[in-house]
């Protein structure tokens, strides 16, 4: 049996995340950070707005905001207006409300988001120890499936956190949805959702699932999955890294040590700006 010694040869390769940060973090372009103090002239900002391929940047007077639910991480704004936009490695960008993906938060957004978190936390109170996850592809580009599947490799090994993938929607607590919301998946996705028992949580994985991403809204794409099923947590990214997806699942069901449902500040350092 050559496989058994082979299996132990590399020792433990599993990440300690979320208990400890993972060494891979710094290499990954996780999100665009928007500096609160504007460091660029109006021309540079206007250039960034024009260059954004998905219209994710809005400029209202002096206030610049970035919608991570649209951002495909092309990095153009980072080059054109480096005083305002910065490419950051952080992947803990999951949001409880679509509007929470727009940074920095607008007036009153924080209160709304806190309320959404609290509502979700009440609903999932019984799920904190272990959850079963069902994945449905609703028109992804295929990369999100790789990153979701990666969660079962020995590096992420989500079983250690009580997260299991399940074949049957009737056993599922969490629905992971990828893709721009293709017209053909409208009915199968809804049927899967309806078959899941309460309480159930929907996590939209990737920028395509949040807004349609580069594909947007077409005859055959619904500009995201929120039109098809009620989404509880959005994980931005194009595609998000496995860590980002894991963070989204853990945040959604309150397994994270941070217990976001308590309304306390999130020690995992979710980037809000």
């Amino acid at each position: 049996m050559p496989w058994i010694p082979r299996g132990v040869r590399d020792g433990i390769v599993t990440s300690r995340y979320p208990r400890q940060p993972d060494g891979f973090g710094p290499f990954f372009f996780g999100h665009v950070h928007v500096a609160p103090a504007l460091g660029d002239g109006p021309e540079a900002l206007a250039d960034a707005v024009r260059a954004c391929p998905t219209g994710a940047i809005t400029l209202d007077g002096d206030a610049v905001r970035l919608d991570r639910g649209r951002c495909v991480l092309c990095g153009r704004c980072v080059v054109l207006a480096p005083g305002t936009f910065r490419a950051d490695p952080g992947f803990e960008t999951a949001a409880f409300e679509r509007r929470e993906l727009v940074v920095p938060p607008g007036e009153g957004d924080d209160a709304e988001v806190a309320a959404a978190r609290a509502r979700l936390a009440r609903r999932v109170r019984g799920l904190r120890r272990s959850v079963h996850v069902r994945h449905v592809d609703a028109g992804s580009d295929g990369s999100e499936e790789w990153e979701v599947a990666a969660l079962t490799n020995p590096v992420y090994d989500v079983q250690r956190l009580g997260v299991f993938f399940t074949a049957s929607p009737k056993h599922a607590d969490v629905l992971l949805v990828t893709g721009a919301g293709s017209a053909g998946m409208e009915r199968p996705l809804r049927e899967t959702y309806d078959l899941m028992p309460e309480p159930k949580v929907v996590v939209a994985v990737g920028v395509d699932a949040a807004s349609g991403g580069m594909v947007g809204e077409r005859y055959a794409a619904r500009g995201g999955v929120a039109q098809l099923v009620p989404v509880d947590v959005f994980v931005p990214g194009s595609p998000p890294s496995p860590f980002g997806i894991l963070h989204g699942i853990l945040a959604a069901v309150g397994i994270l040590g941070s217990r976001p449902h308590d309304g306390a500040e999130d020690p995992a350092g979710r980037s809000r700006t």
Partner: protein
Amino acid sequence: MTAEMADAEGSKGAASSAVVTFPATRRRVRDGARFCGLFALRRPAGGAQLLSVVSADGALVVEEVPVAAGERRYSSLAHEIPASGWYERRIRDLFGIEPVGHPRPDPLVFPVPPGAYAPLGPAGEPEAAMSPDLTPLAPHVHGEGVFAIPYGPVRSGVFEAVEYLLETSGEDIPHLRTRIFYKHRGVESRFAGMSADDGVLLAERVEGVASVAHALAFSAAVEQLGEVAVPLQAELVRVVHAELERVANHLDTMVRHTEAAGQAVAYAVFSHHKERVQRLRARLCGSRFGRGVVVPGGIGQSLRLRPAEVLAAIAPLQRRIEEDVRRLMGTPSFVDRLRGTGVLSRDDARRFAVVGPVGRASGEAEDVRTSRPYGAYARLGHRVVAHRTGGDALARQLVRIDEIAGSFHLVRQAADMLGELGEPASWRATVPPVSGRAIGWAEAPQGEVLSVVEADGGRLAQVTQRTASFHNLAAYPAAFPKDIFTDVAFIEASFGLSIAGAAC
């Protein structure tokens, strides 16, 4: 690239004499050319231009046929050239142009409901929401005890959405149909009006697991139109990303094979190898899928590691992968599941003009990195194309194993050359506003990708990213008749195709 109009030659099939046809394409394919695809380009006032592309003697040969607004049909090629069957169904679904005499004209990429217009046809509205017609397909197989099993689009495990319609009388699979429309997003309609710089971002997302190859094919077409010379160093960086993409995809097929075979340790080992490759890719550019690197004219960012660091990173990676591949291929309980499974005969591979590793495992040896070398491939010593004739899942696996070694070899050569050449003055040549039509290509891990780009004054008018997945999936049912249900997972994994790319 040559374009020629239909010359006088008798047409076959049920077509009426008034219907346009493709005499030169039929003749060339009879003479041994490989059919590469059939495309529709929109023309003003409800007209269209049909483009058939074949590959012969190391070049792409295009035959163009105009379709008048009132006469949106042509004589189907599918009887003579089975590889064209899916293209004709796609063009019918999306553009509403009818292939007269098609043997199996079921809807394919988007079943347009009765009374609605084809989304890219003259009366179509690509931005208005439509719902596909979900009417089940009529059975193809008749006989006592024959029943149909719809498998999908939501399947157990983390898979892309696709439905396999298995028609059987027991455990064997005499007939299989693939329904890919669930994932159709209408990507082609999105390109219109974009700049080339935005277009490449969308091209990366046509088939996300082959982002680099799609960006390469698209950029090649734009660079042809702009008559741009890409800096050599940029071409070498492109090779590094494209070949690591190939390694990751080939490892993914092994992960899926070991999962299907229930080899728990091997699954853990190979998924760890794949993760290492993905992390190396992220260290090189920030994206685990090589996104944002290839842009028209060159590259958007140079490697974040020095060439010597790249070499240092891939040496242990390759050694470990090869060690474990040897161990895996020496495990009889694994190899037995692949041997003789999902045989795609040489004849079928030829008839469907199958590309990529699947074709190369059935004797169709073309690899566009060597047959129509692009970018830096002409300067690098690419190994003799890995190629077998067994046609089963094992042969496909062996081809991929050889290709992984070939890819690492190419990365090493590219890194060496980058080290010698040093930094260029610029990583990206300026691309002028482009007009006209061109076809770019690249060898994706799944096989040849074609990008048919039509542009006007720097804006894209229409772009079709023809994926190897779409092209090869047409041949998928031909690999099934001798197999049983438990082989499905192996055959699917060994084809290694992306449904997103096939259905886009």
